[in-house]
């Protein structure tokens, strides 16, 4: 009989790991708490750096994991440690015995309403990076005027690099996402004036700097180095955004019709709850703690428990996929070692 491997989370990390484990001859079982596979990427529209449709990436991954057992709308109820395996009770009443658990539980987006000074949920023209991706997909959002915004802005580092929000980490993908989304908005609304308010631009990945240069040169997007301090509404119902332009050392004020908050990547509280069932440690950044952050990122400190993807920290899609493959191989090697 093929060996069961329980994968928690059916995002891109869980799907890719399942596909690899199938090829290696195992029986992966994916437990996904939501009603769809693909996790966050299933909500995105086009992916940096090549503007690949997210839908294509997700459907390819779902096809690859087609032979796996998949339970949607299902979570982990409790876990019993047996002598050399785990007995796992799923919320749908099914129990699974496995020697291997793979956490692919991903992240959650920082709740932008917690930064009250930015007015998310208070003013009608404030949305998040996730709302904007959804609008690219559905074309449906009252916050975006049909004729397009005259002036709009992107606020970097919302709930990231912020001790007041209890998240001092950089979320890594939001700088490039802001620049990508700014370009996409300019393509849709060529007359719009678009600002990005940043503290540092972290363009670390393949072709990211090209995006930045193109945003400046081809799209005329204006970059202001200063963290937005507050957002208010004027009597005409337009947004007034304030910051310091730290490069000129002067306060700046811009009136806008739309503001997009680049909400950060934080650890999924559900992950921590599930991790608590098997007493997994949490690292100082709030994400699951690997055995070693250099050499063993996909291995937990516990026997038979592995990680893949953003449950251990912010990652891009290619990084997540590479990690899922590496986790599958680590699992294979571990099982070989048991024999």
């Amino acid at each position: 009989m093929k060996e069961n491997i329980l994968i928690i989370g059916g995002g891109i990390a869980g799907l890719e790991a399942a596909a690899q484990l199938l090829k290696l001859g195992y029986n992966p079982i994916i437990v996904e708490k939501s009603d769809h596979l693909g996790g966050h990427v299933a909500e995105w529209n086009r992916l940096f750096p090549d503007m690949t449709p997210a839908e294509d990436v997700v459907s390819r991954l779902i096809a690859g994991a087609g032979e796996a057992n998949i339970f949607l709308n299902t979570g982990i109820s409790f876990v019993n440690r047996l002598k050399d395996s785990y007995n796992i009770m799923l919320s749908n009443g099914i129990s699974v015995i496995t020697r291997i658990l793979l956490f692919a539980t991903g992240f959650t987006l920082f709740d932008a309403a917690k930064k009250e000074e930015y007015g998310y949920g208070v003013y009608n023209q404030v949305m998040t990076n996730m709302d904007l991706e959804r609008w690219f997909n559905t074309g449906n959002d009252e916050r975006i005027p049909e004729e397009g915004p005259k002036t709009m802005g992107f606020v970097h580092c919302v709930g990231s690099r912020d001790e007041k929000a209890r998240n001092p980490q950089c979320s890594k993908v939001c700088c490039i996402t802001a620049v990508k989304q700014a370009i996409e908005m300019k393509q849709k609304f060529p007359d719009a004036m678009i600002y990005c308010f940043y503290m540092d631009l972290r363009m670390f990945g393949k072709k990211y700097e090209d995006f930045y240069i193109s945003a400046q040169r081809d799209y005329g997007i204006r970059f202001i180095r200063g963290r937005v301090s507050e957002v208010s509404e004027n009597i005409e119902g337009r947004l007034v955004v304030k910051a310091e332009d730290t490069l000129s050392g002067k306060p700046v004020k811009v009136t806008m019709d739309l503001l997009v908050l680049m909400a950060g990547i934080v650890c999924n509280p559900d992950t921590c709850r599930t991790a608590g069932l098997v007493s997994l440690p949490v690292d100082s950044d709030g994400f699951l703690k690997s055995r070693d952050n250099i050499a063993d990122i996909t291995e937990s400190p516990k026997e038979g428990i592995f990680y893949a993807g953003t449950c251990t920290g912010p990652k891009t899609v290619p990084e997540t996929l590479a990690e899922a493959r590496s986790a599958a191989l680590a699992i294979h090697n571990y099982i070989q070692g048991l024999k």
Partner: protein
Amino acid sequence: MMDFGFKISPSSAINLDNADLSLYDELCKAEPDICKCMACGSCSAACPANRFSGMSVRKLIIDLQRGKKKEAVKMLSDCMLCGKCTMVCPRGINTRHLILSICKLYKED
């Protein structure tokens, strides 16, 4: 000296080889958080005195780090100690307390 009709103005470059950072070093002991500033400008943007007097904790810190003591001390008199800067600082620096410590240290000097 020969008169060329113009004179060389003093260099505005900051020479870090000669910058006197002794007071800044002392301040670091009293306020270790000062090193955490990432120059985001939230404090200046929130400061009610900024628009009128140019008061800015961000500039204050960078002036001290560059040994520009005079500029820094001059700015201090514009602060009303209202604490708004402390409320917004994303690095969690107690800027209001910092301003008070600077006043104490630099007055002694």
